[in-house]
Structure formats: C-alpha cells, structure tokens
C-alpha cells in the first residue's frame, strides 16, 4: 500500500514537472541575442538571418559617437549610446518572412548614409 502510494506520488511529481517544463502554449518563438557594434560608418554585423518566429534581442553598442538603429518600415528606432556609455536594447519579433533594412537614424558624420544593414527572416 505504502509502495503504491510512493509510486503514485512519484508519477504525479513527474507529471507536474513535465507540465512545468513544457513550453507554454503559443510560445513557439525562438529567442536570439544579436550583439551589434556601430562605428562610423558601419554596423557589425550588417547582415542578420533568422527563422520566422524568432524574437531578436538586439544589444547595440557604439565604438564612437551616438548612432541610431532604425528598422525601416517599423516603429523600431533607438539611439545607441556613445562609446563607454552602455548599450541600447531593442526587441524585434520576426513574425513575417522577408527582408528588413536597418539603418543609422542619427546623423553621425560625412558617411552617415552608408550605415545600413539587412535582417533576413526566412520561413
């Protein structure tokens, strides 16, 4: 009887663990942290590829002045702090496959308009 009770409790604990460890319903999105360094007049990396459904956490640092990081066609636009002044974080849900251009949105010098990159969201 006691053995039965132990087995029963064990099986309930296992079931509870499985329920706890299982991903929550509807959260099929992967998460990806991408470190981007901005410097007159490039982003490194400037090309980023992810699968559809990925949540990208951009961590943005500058090696010189303030830069902007704007994803064209969206409302995502942050200022990247100057060198040594921390980093900016931007969350981007890549829910739709396609190509998204990102660019520097804060004038940073004579070559400002060369600062661009591409996020490719694949099926």
């Amino acid at each position, binding site marked *: 009887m006691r053995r039965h009770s132990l087995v029963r409790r064990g099986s309930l604990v296992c079931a509870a663990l499985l*329920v706890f460890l299982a991903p929550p319903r509807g959260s099929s999105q992967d998460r990806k942290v991408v470190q981007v360094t901005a410097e007159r007049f490039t982003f490194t990396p400037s090309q980023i590829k992810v699968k559809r459904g990925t949540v990208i956490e951009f961590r943005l640092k500058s090696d010189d002045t303030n830069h902007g990081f704007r994803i064209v*066609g969206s409302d995502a636009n942050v200022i990247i702090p100057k060198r040594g002044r921390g980093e900016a974080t931007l969350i981007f849900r890549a829910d739709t496959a396609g190509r998204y251009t990102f660019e520097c949105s804060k004038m940073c*010098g004579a070559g400002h308009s060369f600062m661009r990159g591409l996020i490719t969201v694949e099926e």
Partner: protein
Amino acid sequence: MRTLIAFFGALLVAGHISAQPPEPAAPPSPPEKTPADTRIEELERQLRELGARVVELEGEKGEPSAEPSDGATAEPQPAAASAAASQDASPVSQTGPISGYMDFHLNRPEHEDPILDFHRFVLLFSHSFSDRLRFIGELELEHALVEGLEESGELELEQAYLDFRVNPAFNIRAGMILAPVGIINERHEPPSFHGVERPFVDTVIIPTTWFDAGAGVHGAFGGGWQYRAYLMAPLDATKITAEEGLAEARQKGFQSNVRNIAQTARLEYGGVRGLVLGTSFWQGKSGFNFRSEDARVGLVEFDGRYHAGPLAIRGEFANVYVGSAAELNDLQQRSTGVNPNIASQMRGFYVEPSVRPLPGLRYDFAAFLRYENFDTQYRMPEGVLPLKQFDRAAWVVGASYFPDPDVVLKIDYSVIRNRSALFGSVDSLNIGLGWWF
C-alpha cells in the same frame, strides 16, 4: 495498475499540453510566464511609455511626427518591435536638425610665431523626403573668414546630394559628393582620427576633402562588402604642383569643366569586427585648360584599419599617375612663364599604431605614433630630375584626450625631413580642440 494508469494519464495530459498547436480559443487558464516573457512585457511597457512621452514632447514643440506616413516601402512590416535603453545608458546628446564638427588649432612651427586658427566650422544638414529619398548637405567654413582675397579662408559646399535608395545593394546618388578615396576623405570628423592636422598623405597625395559634382551608385553586397562607383568632374591638371601635389587641383564644383568625366570607385570590406580594408581608384582626363592635351590623372589607393581592445593600427598607400606630364609642364611654361615641375608619379604612405591604455575609463585617452612618407616628385618626365626637397618623411607623435567621445583635445609634435641638403623642413608643435555634435 491504477498507479500506472494515473502515471500514463498524467503523461498524456502533459504531452497533450506541450505538443498541441496553439488554438485560437482562449485557454481556460493563462500559461506560465517565463522570465523572458516577463522581460518582453516590461520592455513593451517601457516602449509604450516612451512613445507616449515622445508624442507628448512633439506636441509641446508643435512639430509633426518624423515617422513616414506614406508607407512607400516594398518591405514587409514587422509584426512588432519594441525598444528600451538599458539602465546603465547615460542620456544621449541632444542634436537638432543640424549636426556638425569644429576644429580649433594652435600651430607652433619651429622658429616661427605661433598661429591660432579656427580651422574648420562645418555644418551638416539632412532631410528625408521619404524612406527612399534623402538629402544630405555639408557646408564648411575654413579659417573663419572669407573675404575673396587670396589669403582668406574658404566657404565650401562639400556635400549636397540626393540619395535614391533602391535596395541595400543598389542606390543612386547625385549632387555634390565626396570622392570615395582613402580613409580620411569620407570620415574626417576630428574625434575619428589622431593628430591635430590630417595626415600629409591625405593632404597632398589624396587631396582631402576631395569633393565635386557627380553622380553614381553605392551599396552593400553582404558579408561586410560595400562599394561606391561615381562619375565626377575631373581634376584640373594645370593646378598640380610639386609643393602641394593634388591639393589645388580640385575644381570643387565651381562651374566644373566636364569636357571629360572622371571615374572613381571604392571597394571596402568590414565583415570582421574592428577591421576595415579598402581600395579605391580615380582616373580622368584632366588637361581641359589646354585644348591639345588630355593629361590623364589616375590614382590607386589601399588602406586598412584594425582595432582590438586597447590597440589600433591604420595605414594607407596611394600612388598618383599623371599622363603627359612633360607636355603639361611645357604648355604651362609657355602660357605662364613658370615650369610647375609636375611629376609623372607621386607616392605616399603612412602607418599609425595607437593605444588607448585605459579603455574602460569614462574619459578616454589615446597615444599614437605616425610615420609618413610622401614624395610629390616620385617619378619625373623623361629627362627631368626630381627635386629632393619634395621627397619627404614625417614622424608625428601625439596624444588625444576625450572628455566625451565627441570631444577631443589633441596635442602632437611633427618632425618633417626631406632628402635635400639645401632646403630644410620645419618641425611643429600642434594643439587642437575638435568636437562633433
């Protein structure tokens, strides 16, 4: 048996919950939140607050929103995006619609009086007609005063172009543009290079700031590769001199003669963090002041920059070719009475290691040493000997102190030598204050 049934029943329930696809119908109870979900919600909340604050501020300023409203983009809309600055980020600089940089110098040449010079006052303007059509302008006042006399300063329109953005790999640019040659010409903000004055190679061999009217294409291939290819107004070969190389040969968009069009291009690789490698060329018939002479001027250039931790190094090599130099000298002598001694080749290179010994410090500091070698009579037309005073070398040692990443106090000492036994060179102590905003 009942235990086994209960166990498999529990497994079945757990498996069902974890394996089934999301349903449109709301679940009876909300799923457990992971720390990541909580963080996303927090960031989204912060974004909403920031957005509301921006709208509020825009309302206070009476300005329209900067966001494009025409939606003229072929790109898909992201499902959602949010942003938030990290807690340790300090407030960013506040810049209005105008940006710019300034350069303020004290030059103390050996055995001469010191000179205080507000060397450059530069304003940059930008305007977006839409996401695909942009204007950039750069107006520079050199040496603080413009009187129209020979020794006065200059007011220069260094950039004023429209960018037609087709896609990241192909864009069209037209207007007053920078020649895409060398390190400094396209990146000359004072905090972005060491030394009070620009390198000699970037002054006499590559005549920075090199700008003129033109049009062309630019873009990025991916993997860190970028290119630009322009057609521009040519140099004026009759303004080439042994003392200043190509520096005075620019037409600067002032009713530029375009009997012949010059071609220029640059290929740049920046796919590795901290590393940029580039190569550029320029070529164009430049003898338009003499109907009988084309005088093709060409330039080939290679450059590289690398930084890792506190260490950095950059270098550049450039070689200029002047076609029909003998004929140019002859025609110049007949028309002005002076033979300008234009070389058939000019050459220059430099290498500059630097160190930021305390990179974690909020107030940054860097020390550098630059060796330059530049010869504006590297090869002369047949039968003409080069003058040795134009075969020059320079050692420049100095330091840069950054109270802010956009503000720099520079000091350096330049030792210049040439190969002539008759003509000496003048060393100089230079102090400069430069800033970008």
